[in-house]
Each structure stands twice: as C-alpha cells, then as structure tokens.
C-alpha cells in the first residue's frame, strides 16, 4: 500500500471530535456511571441452566416469595438465567438461592459466586491503581527511549482511548468487571504499540528528511505507517470478532472492550499523538541524534 493522504488537513476536525468524545464520556461516566460487576461491588451470583425456556420474571417473583431480593436476567440463551444479589454480605446466599430453586424447579447449576464487600473494594482500588501504574511506567519508558513530548503525546492518547472505551461502556450500560479491566490494560498495550510504531517513524523521518517542515514530516510518517497500522488492526479485529461471536457470554464484554479499544487506538495513534506533538511545536531539533545511541547503531 502506498498512501499519500493529507492527514493533517483534518487535524482540527479530529481535535474537536476527540475533545467532544472525551467530554461525552466524562459526562456519561459521571451521570450514568459504570455498571460495575460483581467483582467490584461485592455480592452473590448464581447461573443456572434449565432444560426449557424460563421466564426470568417468574423466577424473580418466586425468589421474592422466599424473601430473596434478586435481579434475574436471561444469560446467553433463554434457558440460562443469571441471578444476582448485589452487595450482599452473606456467603450463604448462593446456597440459599440454589436450595430454594431446587424445591420448585429442576435445573443444572452452571456457576455461582460470592465476592465479599472488602474484596470488591480492594479490587476496585487495585484496578484503578494498576491502570495508573501502567500509564506512568509507559510514560517513563517513552521519555527514556524517545523524548518527553512523545511521552506526553502517548499518555494523552492512552487516556483518550481508555476514557472513550469507558464512556461507551457507560452509555451502553455494559457490565464492567475484572475481565473488562484486563481488556482495558490490553487496550493500553495495543494502542501504545501503534503509537510507538508511528513515533518511531516520525523520529526516523525527522532525522532523515531535514528539508521538510514538522507537519510534512509527520504527514509523511503517517502515510508510511498507515498500511501497517490498518493491517495489524484488521488482523487483531478478525481475532477479536471470532472471540466476540464464538467465545461465549463470559468473554463477550472483554471482546467488546478490546474491539472498541483497537479501533479507537488506531485513530488515536494517527490524530491524538500528532495533535499533541504539533501543539508542543515538535521540531527536528528535539530529536537530534544523541552522541551515543546504541539502539540506532548499524542503521543506515
């Protein structure tokens, strides 16, 4: 693929788009919040499989009659039910639900779980802390390998990606659990991958093509890497879609989060990084070759 697109002509449109996406995400996260999963809120969960179709409402009413206040929803197929008792402190709840159901119905227990409130809170804190730690370590690495302007650009791009994924999860009211957190971490890794490939090329072109101005260098670099960026996103998406459609219920939100992340990450490595770089007036001087750069030795 040989591209010669003028990406930067649209950079202000992209800036407006990104800023509004982030604002929408922040608003929805603060108003509608995230549908935190059992992992983070604590509570009880029971998944049961019936041999024929069941009405979740019927089971909910039945359980209510047994003094169990539960959320009941179909899970995957209309024969599978997911029964949740949010923020319960009683570990026996799962067994109580199963026992009560057994008195009336015949079914197969697929899984059950209990997360104590203390564990839920901890996981929430740990998860947030982990995301921040990941961002910080990245920033240091890029500062060391490239230059601080790239580090800021990359971290802004990562925040951008994570926020938008969170925003979409909040708008669609998708459940945010541990596996989605793992997906967010993978999004960080993935988006960074893209950002670094682009940064690498920008650095190389700044050094090699001293006659061009900053915008031209960046545009050239984006065109150079566009083929690779698109193909890698495509192969990753191929795999993610197969996870999404065949991976089953438990893995679904993971696949959704990662798919959104891959698309947003591809976009952010083209526009967010470059917008940040240009707004900080990146020039060839920022990337003047250091006297000893062992990584670049042997390169023409």
């Amino acid at each position, binding site marked *: 693929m040989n591209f010669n697109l003028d990406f930067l002509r649209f950079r202000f449109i992209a800036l407006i788009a990104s800023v509004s996406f982030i604002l929408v995400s922040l608003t929805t996260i603060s108003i509608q919040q995230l549908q935190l999963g059992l992992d983070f809120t604590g509570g009880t969960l029971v*998944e049961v*499989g019936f041999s024929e179709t069941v009405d979740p409402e019927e089971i909910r009413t039945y359980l209510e009659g047994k003094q169990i206040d539960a959320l009941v929803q179909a899970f995957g197929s209309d024969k599978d039910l997911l029964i949740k008792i949010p923020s319960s402190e009683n*570990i026996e709840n*799962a067994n109580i639900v199963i026992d009560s159901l057994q008195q009336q119905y015949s079914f197969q*227990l*697929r*899984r*059950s*779980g*209990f*997360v*104590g409130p*203390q*564990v839920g809170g901890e996981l929430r804190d*740990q*998860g947030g802390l*982990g995301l921040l*730690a*990941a961002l910080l*370590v*990245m920033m240091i*690495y890029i500062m060391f*390998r490239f230059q601080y302007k790239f580090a800021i650009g990359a971290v802004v791009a990562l925040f951008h990606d994570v926020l938008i994924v969170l925003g979409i999860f909040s708008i669609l009211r998708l459940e945010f659990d*541990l*596996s989605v*957190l*793992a997906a967010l*971490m*993978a999004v960080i*890794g*993935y988006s*960074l*991958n893209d950002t*670094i*490939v682009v940064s*690498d090329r920008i650095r190389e072109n700044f050094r090699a093509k001293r006659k061009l101005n900053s915008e031209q260098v960046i545009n050239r670099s984006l065109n150079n*890497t566009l083929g*690779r960026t698109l*193909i*890698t996103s*495509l*192969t*990753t998406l*191929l*795999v*993610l*879609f*197969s*996870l999404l*459609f*065949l*991976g*089953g219920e*438990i*893995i679904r939100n*993971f*696949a959704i989060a990662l798919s959104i992340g891959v698309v947003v990450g591809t976009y952010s490595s083209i526009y967010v990084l470059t917008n940040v770089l240009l707004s900080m007036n990146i020039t060839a001087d920022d990337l003047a070759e250091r006297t000893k750069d062992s*990584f*670049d030795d042997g*390169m023409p």
Partner: protein
Amino acid sequence: MFLFGIIYALPNLSPPDPAVQVSLQSAGDSFDSRLVQSVKNIARNEGISDENIEINQKSLLLRTDSYDEQIKLKDELRRELGPDYVVALNLAYSTPDWLQNLNASPLKLGLDLRGGIYFLLEVDTDSLIETRLEANAEDFKRRLREGSLKFRSIESDKESVTFLFATDEDKSDSLSFLRGFLTDFEIIEESESFKIKFSREGITSIQDYAVQQNLTTLRNRVNELGVSEPVVQREGAKRISVQLPGIQDTAEAKKIIGKTANLEFRLEANNRTLRSRKEPFDFRGVSVDLEKNIIISGDKVADANVGYDESGFPQVNITLDGEGGAKMHRSTRNNVGRKMAVLFIERKSAAKEVVLPNGTLDLIIEPVITKRVISLATIQSALPNRFRITGLDSPNEASELALLLRAGALAAPMEFVEESTVGPSLGAENIRLGVQSLILGLFLVLIFMVVYYKIFGLFANIAVIFNLILITAIMSILSATLTLPGIAGIVLTVGMAVDANVLIFSRIREELKSNSRATDAIIAGYDRAFVTILDANITTLIVAVILYAIGTGPIKGFAITLSIGIVTSMFTSILGTRAMVSLIYRKNNVRRLWI
C-alpha cells in the same frame, strides 16, 4: 528449539479423561485383591470395562467416558465402599510413557475450564493479637510477682497492655526487669505507668504465624475431601485461597473447611472419681479413664513447639493464653502427681445413605466425631501458662504432638470473603468455545496473510503456528494453569504476533520500491523494523507484568499467556521468518520477491 516445542506441546493433543479415584483413608494400609475385585464389579455394573481401571500402589483409577458418568460412578462407589476409602473425582492423563519420562505433561486447566470450587478466606488476625496480648499480660504479672516487684495493675485491651505503678521508681524497676521479654513490643512510657504495644515486626510475625498455621490446618482438612490436585495457598498478608477442582457441593466443602477440630486437656480419673464422671478413651490401643471435667480446651493454646530438655530429650512447649493459664494453674496446683491427658477431637465427614420421603435413596454427608488421647503425662508441679509435656518417646512424636496442638484448631478464625463454583458442563463449554474462537481467529488471520503477503505471508503463518506450539509447550513446562482469560490472551497474541511480520514486510516492500536489490531490501527491512518491534513489544510486556502484579486469578491468567506470547512471538516472527526467508532467497541474484 522446534523439536523442543513439539515434544512439550504434544501431551496436550490427548486430553485427560474424567476418572474416579479410590484410595485408602489411612496411608499405612494397602489394597487387597478382594477390594480390587469389588471395585471392578461395581464398575462393571456402571458399564465400565476392566481395561479402564488402573491399579497403582495406593490407589485405583477408573476412567469414564463422560462427566455425568463420572459423578454417577463416584456416588455408587462411595455408597458401596463405605467411609474407609476416599472416593474422589479425578482426571486420568493419557500421556504416553516416553513423554512422561521427559517430564512432559498436558496443561493444567483452571477451575473455569474444568469445573470446581474456589474459596478465598481471610484470617482474622486482630483477635489473635488480642489473645496474645492477654496471654502476655498474665505472663508479665506472674514474672513481676515472682520477682517481688510492686505494681498497681496490669490491664490489657485490644491493642495494648497498660502497667500502672504507685511510684516512678517501681515503674523503672519493673521495666528494666521485663525489658528482656519485650523485644516484640513498642514501649510507651508515662509517669508512673507504661504501655506496651506490639511493634510492626511483632504484628507481622503474629500474622505470618496465624496464616501459616491456618494454611497447614486447611491443607489437612482439604485432604479429607479427597479431591485430586487441590491448591491451598497464601494470598497476600492475611488471605488464603483454596481451589478444589471437580467438586460441586459448596455446602459440603464449606462445612469441612470451616470445621473446628478441637483439643481438650483433662485429668486421668483416679479412685476418688465418681463413675458417672468418668469416660473411657483409647490411648495407643489401651483404654484409659478420663474425668469428664475439662480443664481447658484447645482454643486456649496460644502456641506449641518442639524443644529439648537439659538431657536432650524431646518435649513440647505449650503456651496458653491468660484465661487458660489461670485455669490450668488452678486445676494442676492440687493435682501434682496425677496424670493429665490431651484429648484430640476430630469431626470428619462420612457419606451416609438415607431414604427420602418420596422413596428415593440419597447420599448425604454427615459429621462423624472421633475422640482419642494423644498424650498422657504426669503433672510434676502446678502449671503456669507456659509449660511443657515431657516423657515423649521420640522427636517425631514430639513434633507430631506440637503439630496437632497447633493444627488441631485454627490459630485464628477465618471468614469466607470470596467464593466461586463452576459446573463441569460450563467448564467443558468454555473449553469448546475458547478453542473454536481460537481456531476461527487463527484461520482468518492465516488466510489474510497469504492473500496479502503471498509467500512471505506463508512464512509468517508458519511462524504464528509455531508460536502457538511454543506457548503451549512453555506453559506446560512451567505448569501454568490455562484459564478462559488465558485462552483470550493466546487468541490476542495470534492477532498481535503477525504485527511484527507486518512491520517487517511493509518495510521490505518500501525498500523494494526505492529500488533496492531484493537481498538488500530483506536485510534493511528486518534491521529497520527490529527497533520498532522491540519498543512495541517491551511496552506491551510492561503492561502484562503490571497486570500480573496487581491482578488476581483471571487477570493473572491473561497476563501470563500474554507475556509468554510476546516473548515467543518476538522469537518466531523475527528469527523464525528470517531463517525461512534466507533459506529460500539464499542467492544474491534474486530479482523479484513474491511479497
């Protein structure tokens, strides 16, 4: 390298069969042919032929065709064989001997793929610290009294012990007298009084002790459940996780894990003891009569360890808490010369058949309580809160007694903070879905690469497949556990592993366009892409490592496969494809690359 990957990935081709394992309750006995025959008969009734029965030294393994059959067979065997045998669900590996000799074995499957129960328990160390403070306060009181030092009062609360004195002088005298015993404490001095608190190291050591102790107890209890490959391990400062593959009944498992085995200290009955106050117990095959009256029970034992007396004979040093020490002192003061017994009370569970109201038979698990004397020793003098049991035959016996004293009961109470159960049908479904999506994803990527990069795409494909083999092999060697998020990690690696090749190939194409010679283009393509690939992979690896460090169960599984995948994919997609490329385009006069 290639061969190595193949060999260690090979055992995964034949998945293990569901099986039922029959083993003996106590380690000493061995199987006789009658038992083997009766197991065979039961199995035959369930439609399992003799060749599916594997006879080992200590156990019998019966392979079944399905998980439903496995559970049916287990119930049947439990009912027929009775409580003397442990009947457990297991997996029978079908790895050929020559592979087993190379230590090659299939991947361990996580609970989400295999079915089973996971518990996370939190040890309540605060209550233990309180008990310890109490015990120490009593001990210090006694020492000060014995040293004829004056004090007004010694009071303990949840976090500290306060010593009150009439004068400042009394205080400093007592403090210097006790200083040697206060190494684990922080001392806060005030006028006419001082306060002691456990120091941070002191608290850590108590926590470590409690968690370690509970871990030992839990392992013993879990072994009773007769589960194959249970995992009981410490998680962080105060938690213990328990994984029980194959078990479905959470209620039963919880009962056994949360049960309280106990100890009782009682006096041996003498001729003045009323008959109605006597109870006979077994002690090393001989019957002894003990008083029904309990001096103290095991929860008053704060610590027990093995020591040696002046002449080198083994003894068990016991420390009681404050209340226990006082009771022990009161009871032994007037009974010097009599014998005191340590009685071990254990609640085991055994399967029992019951007839339900509707006429069907059901198997229920009910507790069986056994009591036996584990030590009988003469009281030499009135016992304080620290005393020793001597007259033991061997160091082994001493350490066993100390272990029982400690392990019989939990060091500190525990609370279930997390639990999850996965049914075997869901587990099997998860494996199927995971593998299906892996195959479809792989297939799509492979086709795309060949269409887009032609022969080079083929090289990349061979590299990706080899990469998958390597990941499987390395995980098998590390005996890492494969979970559903782990499969997701592998699937993701497939998508990302081709990235390195895409980078390299796009570079080669670019070089070709700027009119480089084919061989030069290949060299330049690999060289220039390498730095980028390295940077990109190192950053992803950093994310994976952070995920591993902060994550629990499922996230850890994802992080492990992702990091292994990143490392192996660097190897296969750079070195692997390059080897193939140079093999094909060896000569310098290549005109055109089919890329």
